[in-house]
């Protein structure tokens, strides 16, 4: 009864929340939380800046704010003016606003330009225990560092620009524990697709998810980012992984990571963040990593997924009437017949990219499979690095040459075909194996059909022309490195 809040066992999420309380909400009012890092891009910021101008308000902390151009940027001919007027205006507006309000901006052509959720981590700005917001739902990505990261709307963007705080309602906590060892060819993407299929697209609503267990600990930071990135597809407020030696090794030496005595102080603090042993989660979910197989979606939401070795499900076997109707609609849109083995489904396009899977590890994994191979005839394959820096790092390892020799396109950085705000879009009826995060109707282009997959499945599919796993390549007699990582340093 005499316990103070700080002696109460707490989860990682609760510790980060408590450390950022500016004012505790009373009588059902939200808490006011301090925001350590505000990431800005061209789509959701224009009206926020306009609101500041109208009210005569400055940006409170330009030094905690950073902008990049990603959603609308072309991935070809980046030196030419942008053709589509809406895209061009949004980017020009961001440039003018950044200048007027004194905000650091990484424009097209700059080495740090790229998908906002790739840029923050690569600069070392995303750190354990901080709060991160961005006018983009995939901000949950940054939780991989043990940060608390939320996607927000345009009015909230304005609020953070003006006050560096955000009123937020309290959350519930959910532990997602993944124990065991992933089989070769199974990746972080397969873990998160399996999680979403298990708890559903609304299963995380109101929760901050914490990913735990030996399978999560074994992942690289790029893999952890893939998992946290898709927390929003389960409806969660955020997703997090406690920081550890893997996190620190990733951060050390990055441009904005602490140095010297600051580094030591930071690590000492970061080491206190992990969930206390006796802390209690509001909900718990368990997954056996040993049982997981490469995963793929068959429908039009990220929860409609199954193991690649299975067949298109029959809606008639679904008991819940709403879900059954949704599955029927999804199969009609996807032009799929129940009972068809997933591996017999041919694709027209393979998209390797997006804030889910466009980092160096992802590109290495993809390249390790396609190296020395030729893409299937009639399949378009585009590879879009997450940032200009990732692109250069990949080129230094020869990945661009592997991609081009394979017959695929090596593009410039951006969100690209994940949402088709730039010219990278599916044509009506085209089917795509995509390493992105949303298989919604029309997301990748009007009438386009999306199957969400891992980089390894994307690569195998690009070789075989039908949805495929690495083990299918091996069965074909195609030589694959046992670790599926012929490139130095690859961690799949």
């Amino acid at each position, binding site marked *: 009864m005499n316990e103070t809040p700080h002696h109460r066992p707490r989860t990682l999420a609760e510790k980060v929340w408590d450390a950022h309380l500016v004012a505790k909400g009373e009588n059902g009012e939200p808490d006011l939380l*301090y925001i350590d890092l505000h990431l800005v891009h061209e789509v959701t910021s224009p009206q926020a800046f306009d609101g500041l101008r109208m*009210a005569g*308000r400055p940006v409170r902390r330009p030094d905690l704010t950073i902008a990049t151009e990603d959603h609308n940027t072309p991935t070809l001919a980046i030196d030419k003016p942008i053709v589509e007027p809406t895209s061009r205006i949004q980017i020009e507006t961001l440039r003018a606003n950044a200048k007027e309000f004194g905000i650091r901006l990484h424009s097209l052509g700059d080495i740090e330009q790229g998908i906002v959720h790739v840029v923050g981590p690569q600069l070392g*700005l995303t750190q354990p225990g901080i709060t991160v917001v961005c006018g983009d739902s995939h901000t949950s990505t940054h939780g991989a560092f043990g940060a608390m990261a939320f996607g927000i709307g345009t009015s909230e963007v304005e609020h953070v620009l003006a006050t560096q705080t955000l009123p937020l309602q309290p959350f519930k906590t959910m532990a997602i524990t993944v124990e065991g060892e992933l089989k070769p060819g199974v990746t972080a993407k397969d873990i998160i697709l399996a999680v979403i299929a298990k708890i559903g697209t609304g299963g995380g609503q109101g929760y901050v998810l914490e990913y735990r267990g030996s399978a999560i600990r074994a992942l690289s930071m790029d893999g952890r980012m893939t998992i946290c990135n898709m927390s929003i597809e389960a409806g969660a407020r955020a997703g997090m992984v406690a920081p550890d030696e893997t996190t620190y090794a990733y951060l050390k030496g990055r441009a904005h990571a602490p140095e010297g005595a*600051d580094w030591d*102080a930071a690590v000492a*603090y970061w080491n206190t963040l992990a969930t206390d042993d006796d802390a209690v989660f509001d909900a718990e979910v368990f997954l056996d990593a040993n049982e997981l197989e490469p995963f793929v979606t068959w429908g039009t939401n990220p929860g409609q997924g199954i193991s690649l070795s299975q067949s298109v499900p029959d809606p008639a076997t679904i008991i819940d009437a709403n879900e059954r109707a949704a599955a029927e609609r999804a199969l009609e849109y996807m032009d799929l017949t129940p009972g068809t083995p997933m591996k017999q489904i041919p694709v027209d396009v393979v998209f390797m990219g997006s804030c889910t899977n466009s980092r160096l590890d992802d590109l290495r994994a993809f390249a390790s499979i396609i190296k020395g191979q030729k893409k299937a005839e009639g399949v378009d394959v585009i590879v879009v690095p997450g940032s200009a820096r990732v692109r250069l790092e990949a080129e230094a390892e020869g990945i661009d040459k592997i991609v081009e020799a394979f017959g695929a396109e090596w593009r410039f950085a951006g969100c690209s075909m994940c949402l088709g705000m730039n010219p990278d879009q599916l044509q009506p009826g085209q089917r795509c194996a995509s390493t992105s995060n949303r298989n919604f109707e029309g997301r990748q282009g009007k009438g386009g059909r999306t199957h969400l997959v891992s980089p390894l499945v994307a690569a195998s599919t690009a070789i075989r022309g039908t949805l495929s796993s690495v083990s299918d390549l091996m069965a074909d007699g195609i030589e694959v490195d046992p670790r599926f990582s012929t490139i130095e340093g690859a961690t799949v």
Partner: protein
Amino acid sequence: MEKVSTITGVAVPFRRSNVDTDQIIPAVFLKRVTKTGYDDALFSAWRQDPEFILNRPEYANPRILIAGSDFGTGSSREHAVWALRDFGFAAVISPKFADIFRGNAGKQGLLVGVVDEATVETLWTELEANPGMDATVDLVERTVSVGNITVPFEIDDYTRWRLLEGLDDIGLTLRDEQAITDFEARRESWRPTTLPTR
């Protein structure tokens, strides 16, 4: 946000109910990058009709819209409030507003007052008999006056207080500015900053 207490100006008897936000501002205008300059977008489809009430000279420069029931239904777009504001409206009176619209209005300083159906009819009749007549909306007294008629309207205490004080969401938070400044003073020096560029 400017403080609102008394609004006086041309009142428009808007004999329409179920005015949804797609009518207030069609989706085609949502691609813009500004938060102002939507005056041309307001009721843009209806304004194609030369007889539409807002095209009539006696209702030039209107300030107060007296509308039918269920005003602002449909899409959540904040642009609907921006368009009304940019056209010059400072208050909308109706027997019933959609929840999201009412919330958006409060955040942008657009006063929305509720009166019953019979009262709206009374106001319409008086305004139609005297086209272009001024009305006064008194937020302190919570009344609408047209000619010799003065009637009460409803608005919740919290929204009324915010309007009288001129507080938007940001303004409300900035009442805690000292707490924000105190927090910043406690913040560890090794926390990341984006500037200077490293």
